[in-house]
């Protein structure tokens, strides 16, 4: 291995919070050499970003405190340098890009100005910086660089914004680029493009790349070596292929085991009558058509997945179906009645039958109500379901069914973890004894292991209660493991639908194929094969 360029030794960082000091990372050590790609892999709360923030001097002290360790860059300990000396290194020698580029770009300055600033801050003359900016924009693939430099961040798409961040970070050809979850909020096809861009630029400049991610697929695609973190400590490190093929630590084993897309495909979709039938549903917002005539059916006891990228209209379908928004036209037949033409009274009764589980359980539970109040609200609204005397007993029963304990009933949502909160949200939906549950990205915000558990729970409940699911997701591997049938949507239209095996193994439409090709496999070998295929295609 080449001489390390940047090395973190025994770093420990503590944050002082209301509940006393919390050790965010303990004794973390890693190193990265020129031309190498190192990934730090961890779930939320694992402290995976903390060491990178320490490298960039982005930890606010207080409440943070670096209690021990060294950060060696080219033989100097960064932690011993003055603030001015560290500023000299930031942006020039070590640069960083972040998740969510929209909030990380200053909304009130043009992107050209912001990239120029990176140059002028470190001494490039203004006129030279301007020329350099245009060529940087061109290099990262921003169309029409001259005009784009005069635009503001909000005028670009998500993927383009991340390209702008990359242009800004690479302006001074740094030795090290740190990328903190650079593709997390992006669609899979855009993610693939950004990763490809990073790879290409890294080859050209020979810089070291440190990528922080929660996604095994990203590691498989881009990393040479990987550091796995859990609860503030490094549990394992090694080459990406080695760690995937032969994990040593139980945590790593669990993490890899939970990765979706490896389970058995549901091959025997229930052959029952459709209970829900959507016909030609349209939704317009002013001039914009979010849904352009969608028709599909949901059979009893079936899990129907709707997949698509952002803006495909998949969430709008759910919101219209649940009458959170009014459709512009179309029909939704449920037990012979059109859901879109119900009287208020009928709508109220229908609410019992079709329920929803939302994406972010932190936001879908009222923070000022106890779990008991949250679940029993269903019966306060629909008193015919259950007499008040039996509420307590039934809440305990429901909590048991979703894998929580009866004594949890008197706690507040903030006292639970993300996965537990989603279980509460599922219990709330079940309280109404529905026939259909619409899950709108219900597991997207969860860590993979928790995701797997919640999916398992949903599967179990389906059989117990005879439910049908409409499962809206952007994450294809999860869909592959869970769904019976899949609908692929693009720009408000259904482009393809069919049994899950057909969609995943014999997609007919180019769009579906691209979508599948762009989604990352957690196995580095599979990704390497795909990359080789891609390259040979480009050459040919």
């Amino acid at each position, binding site marked *: 291995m080449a001489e390390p360029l940047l090395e973190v030794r025994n770093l420990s960082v503590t944050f002082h919070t209301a509940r006393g000091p919390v050790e965010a990372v303990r004794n973390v050590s890693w190193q990265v050499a020129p031309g190498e790609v190192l990934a730090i892999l961890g779930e939320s709360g694992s402290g995976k970003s903390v060491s990178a923030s320490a490298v*960039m*001097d*982005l930890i606010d002290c207080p409440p943070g405190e670096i209690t021990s360790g060294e950060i060696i860059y080219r033989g100097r300990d960064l932690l011993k340098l003055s603030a001015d000396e560290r*500023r*000299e*290194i*930031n*942006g*020039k020698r070590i*640069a*960083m890009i*972040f998740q*969510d580029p929209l*909030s*990380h*770009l*200053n*909304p*009130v*300055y*043009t992107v050209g100005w912001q990239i120029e*600033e*990176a140059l002028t*801050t*470190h001494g490039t003359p203004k006129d030279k910086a301007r020329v350099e900016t245009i060529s940087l924009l061109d290099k990262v693939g921003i169309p029409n660089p001259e005009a784009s430099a005069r635009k*503001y961040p*909000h005028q670009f798409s998500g993927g383009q914004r991340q390209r702008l*961040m990359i242009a*800004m*970070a690479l302006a001074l050809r740094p030795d090290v680029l740190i990328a903190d979850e650079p593709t997390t909020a992006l669609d899979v096809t855009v993610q693939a493009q950004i990763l490809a861009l990073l790879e290409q630029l890294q080859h050209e400049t020979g810089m070291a790349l440190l990528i922080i991610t929660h996604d095994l697929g990203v590691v498989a695609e881009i990393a040479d070596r990987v550091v796995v973190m859990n609860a503030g400590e490094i549990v394992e490190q090694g080459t990406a292929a080695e760690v995937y093929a032969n994990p040593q630590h139980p945590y790593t084993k669990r993490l890899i085991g939970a990765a979706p897309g490896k389970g058995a495909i549901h091959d025997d979709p229930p052959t029952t009558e459709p209970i829900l039938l959507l016909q030609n549903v349209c939704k317009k917002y002013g001039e914009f058509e979010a849904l352009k005539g969608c028709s599909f059916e949901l059979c009893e006891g079936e899990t129907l997945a709707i997949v698509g990228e952002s803006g495909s209209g998949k969430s709008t379908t759910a919101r219209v179906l649940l009458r959170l928004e009014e459709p512009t036209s179309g029909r939704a037949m449920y037990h012979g009645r059109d859901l879109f033409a119900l009287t208020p009274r009928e709508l109220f009764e229908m609410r019992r039958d079709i329920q929803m589980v939302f994406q972010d359980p932190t936001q879908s539970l009222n923070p000022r109500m106890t779990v008991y109040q949250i679940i029993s609200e269903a019966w306060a609204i629909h008193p015919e379901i259950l007499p008040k005397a039996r509420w307590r007993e039934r809440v305990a029963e429901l909590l048991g069914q979703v894998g929580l304990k009866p004594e949890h009933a008197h706690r507040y949502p903030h006292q639970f973890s993300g996965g537990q909160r989603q279980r509460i949200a599922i219990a709330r939906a079940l309280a109404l004894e529905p026939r259909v549950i619409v899950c709108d990205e219900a597991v997207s915000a969860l860590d993979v292991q928790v995701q797997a558990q919640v999916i398992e729970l949903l599967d179990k409940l389906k059989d117990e209660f005879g439910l049908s699911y409409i499962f809206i997701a952007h994450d294809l591997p999860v869909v592959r493991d869970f769904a019976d049938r899949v609908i692929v949507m693009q720009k408000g239209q259904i482009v393809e639908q069919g049994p899950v095996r057909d969609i995943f193994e014999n997609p007919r439409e180019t769009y579906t194929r691209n979508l599948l090709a762009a989604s990352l496999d957690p196995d580095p070998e599979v990704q390497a094969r795909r990359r080789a295929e891609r390259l040979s295609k480009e050459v040919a």
Partner: protein
Amino acid sequence: MKKFLFKRAISSAISLLLLIVAVFFLSRLTGDPTDLYLPVDASQEARDNFRAINGLDQPLIVQFGRYVWDVLHLDFGDSIRRARPALEVVIEAFAWTLQLALITMFLVSLAAIILGSLAAFKVGGFFDRIATFFSLIGAAAPDFWVAIVAIVIFSLGLGWLPTSGTGTPLHWILPIAVLFIRPFGLILQVVRGSMINALSSAYVKTARAKGVTPKKQVFVHALRNGMLPVITVIGDQAAGMLNGAVIVETIFGFPGVGKLMIDSILQRDFSVILAAIMVTAIAIFLMNILIDLAYAALDPRIRY
């Protein structure tokens, strides 16, 4: 942009119209309007005479039409006390208040923005303590009391500053100082809060990662974003400046529109009051448009 200005003008015109109507009905329905226009000791004959001249003996709807017509032509009649057109009297006084308000507002904004930004950069630091102290005192101080205490100390006690009038620059110091306090306290607090938000934002983190100096982080990256809510408050406070002007002008004998209104109320000079209401409302309307334009200039995401 034109479309926006047009829409804004329409909505403000509706506000003005409602104000005109409200003033009319309050003045006509709550008692004898001659009470408003004439001195308390006016004879019955004088009252009848006044009614006939001004059409007050006619049906309400006719009176209303005439009133609206006059107001729309900016014809408010003559000031009874001054025997001059009311509008002229008001505009003269308004010029004084405008000068006073502009100078004060400029000083307030400058001081509050600089001190507030410095306070936000280091929460709990030296500037933060000063800023918090002044903003709390400033927002709590009754201006009339501060004014008379200041007179006792600086004019009567030390003899440094004159108590009333507008003759020399010295005359302006006390009115400006007193008028300064409340808006300063309020704006300072908003600047501080808004800048704390802006400084903890993701784009400032990016700037730090770029190696931008702390000074530029505050005054280039955060300030322009942090100014957006501040602009709104500055607008509100500029309009509220007239509240302070009423007190300050009365106490310091400053010939502005605030004193004019209080005088006219005590002298029951209704034409002047009506003219003053309209002139102030129009001035505030123009200022609101300026605020909107400033907003658009600061934030490229806003396009009218």
